[in-house]
């Protein structure tokens, strides 16, 4: 299993994702500079969090046109595994690999805190190490995490079980109080129809090392092995 971490100017969580894959899981991991046009051979691509292009104009709007993106889109369309975390999720949306859009948080403020997330189903490649409806604690850190999609799109997501993570209360209840940024139906993470592209706002790479406390994120990375 070989992992590739795509690095844009302004990416911040590239080193964090690299550290989990390389140091904690011991998986061969390479950093891929956004100006490359071909991908090294790898089985999983991680598009990390951060402020690609300073989040200028629209989050992910400029990164979407980096030279590497055509190769990433082609890799995804051929069934390769792609995970977009936070800014990475926003880039996948701008690139059309995932449906919907991420708007400014309801509070208009940047939010960095641990939140409870309910794993909607473990039938997907990325969530197979969790139990369905399991409640885990993952940190979020964003100002534009307010997921939106029109009614048809939402119906489509639900019908094809593409909603993998929702913001929830500690006992797994989907409520507005448990919704930190105003996302439609508390959506925190979705996959595409084929299930090989995952986009999520929470940061699993930040809860993978016991020294930092909880490790609810490691199971997601282990699902790639």
């Amino acid at each position: 299993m070989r992992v590739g971490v795509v690095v844009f100017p302004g990416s911040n969580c590239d080193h964090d994702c690299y550290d989990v894959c390389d140091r904690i899981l011991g998986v061969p991991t390479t950093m891929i500079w956004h100006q490359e046009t071909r991908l090294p051979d790898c089985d999983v691509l991680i598009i990390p969090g951060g402020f690609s292009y300073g989040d200028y104009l629209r989050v992910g709007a400029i990164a979407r046109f980096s030279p590497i993106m055509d190769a990433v889109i082609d890799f995804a369309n051929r069934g390769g595994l792609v995970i977009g975390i936070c800014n990475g999720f926003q880039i996948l949306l701008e690139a059309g690999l995932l449906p919907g859009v991420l708007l400014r948080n309801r509070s208009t403020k940047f939010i960095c805190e641990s939140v409870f997330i309910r794993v909607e189903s473990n039938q997907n490649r990325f969530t197979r190490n969790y139990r369905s409806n399991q409640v885990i604690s993952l940190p979020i850190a964003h100002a534009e995490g307010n997921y939106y999609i029109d009614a048809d799109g939402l119906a489509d997501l639900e019908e094809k079980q593409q909603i993998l993570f929702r913001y929830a209360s500690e006992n797994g209840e989907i409520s507005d109080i448990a919704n930190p940024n105003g996302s439609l139906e508390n959506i925190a993470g979705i996959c595409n129809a084929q299930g090989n592209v995952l986009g999520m706002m929470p940061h699993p790479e930040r809860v993978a090392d016991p020294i930092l406390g909880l490790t609810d994120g490691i199971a997601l990375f282990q699902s790639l092995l």
Partner: protein
Amino acid sequence: MKAKVYISLKKGILDPQGKAVERALATLGFSGVEGVRIGKYLEVELKPQEAETASQSVKEMCEKLLANTVIETYRYELEPD
């Protein structure tokens, strides 16, 4: 030559920043406000060229990058120097 581009959120799309400004205006005592929507206003300096070609390229810029046509609409005006 200058292009003035106005990008707004489509009707029905949530505008948290607009709501926040609306609330702030109320607390400042502006009673006559019924709604606020916030969008982007871009000024693009263009090399002198035919209005027709300029309009075509500005349209393309908006479609490709400046606006996210899923949730935003755009309009623009051209101003010869």
